[in-house]
């Protein structure tokens, strides 16, 4: 047997020895960290609201004479207005929300004059609001819907209006009646 043949036979035997026996086959792997900008903290946005200082009731408009409802007697033709600010905090790159109101119903029970007064006052007050801005800015989407343009706080001026229209004919049923105006609040609800 010549040398070349001897060498080849020896190599083949060596390779066969490495692969035989009770050992396990291995595979290669490698790891590479992602770029630093793709990791880090995730911060959630915020939608919160708080009532400002207690407002006042005024006659006619928010600039009219102050009214003390404990002693004031409402009559046909009167309008009384309550005004107060709400502070809204809204942060979120794609945060959109709607503004609505709850409450402000008027209820008169018991004596006929009370129920007549409830009807005369339209069964409830009208709640409206105006967004007047602050450290944040909101974009109006119409229909009471807004989108956060700049994160921060906004002032929302709330107005609650009670009206007793002056009618075309005499109706004395509600004289001396007493009705209860329920509390009201503004609701801010995220929308898709």
């Amino acid at each position, binding site marked *: 047997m010549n040398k070349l043949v001897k060498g080849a036979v020896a190599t083949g035997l060596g390779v066969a020895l490495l692969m035989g026996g009770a050992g396990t086959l291995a595979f290669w792997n490698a790891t590479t960290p992602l770029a630093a900008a793709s990791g880090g903290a995730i911060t959630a946005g915020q939608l919160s609201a708080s009532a400002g200082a207690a407002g006042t009731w005024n006659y006619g408009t928010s600039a009219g004479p102050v009214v*003390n409802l404990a002693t004031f007697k*409402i009559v046909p033709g009167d309008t009384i207005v309550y005004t107060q600010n709400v502070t809204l905090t809204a942060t979120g790159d794609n945060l959109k929300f709607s503004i609505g*109101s709850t409450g402000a119903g008027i209820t008169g029970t018991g004596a006929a004059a009370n129920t007549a007064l409830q009807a005369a006052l339209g069964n409830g007050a009208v709640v409206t609001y105006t967004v007047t801005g602050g450290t944040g800015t909101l974009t109006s989407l119409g229909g009471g819907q807004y989108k956060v343009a700049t994160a921060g706080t906004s002032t929302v001026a709330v107005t609650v209006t009670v009206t007793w229209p002056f009618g075309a004919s005499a109706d004395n049923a509600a*004289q001396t009646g*007493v009705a209860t*105006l329920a509390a009201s*609040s503004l609701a*801010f609800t995220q929308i898709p």
Partner: protein
Amino acid sequence: MLLIAVVTATLGAGSTYAFLNASASANAATSVSAGSAGFSVATVSALSTTGLYPGSGFSYGTYTLTNEGEVALTISVTAASATDTGGGTNLGAALTIDAALVPVATACTAATYNQYTRGGAGNLSVAAGLVAPNRFLVNPPKPTTRLCVRVSLPTSAPAAAAGRTTNVAITLGGVQV
């Protein structure tokens, strides 16, 4: 070959998606009380038909009207009658009856009676009336005005009116303005 492991985060069973909301109070609950419309009449000096005779001049009655409610009122005469005591209308029908609303300080003998005459046009003064009290005050003063009534027996009065007594009744009404 480089193998990149893909990991998918899954929600636990039974979770629901959330949305943000907030609320803030506006007005607190409160009572709203209604006012009323009403007025009273008080006699300062009563009208007398004693001693009247055709052409004798006028007999005056002075009254104070007080606004007892919360609204301004126009005052009008809704009825005026003169009924003879014992029946009949010989005297009552012959009387002229005039009325006027004047400032409280005005004497009825000096007032101008161009606002109401029984059987005539006009029905007191819409402009004068009774103003509303100041509802922004606690226990505000009640506005008042003066009602002057005068009667007379014209020279055309029938003889049958002589010696008779009649009761003059005037009913007033107030309407919110």
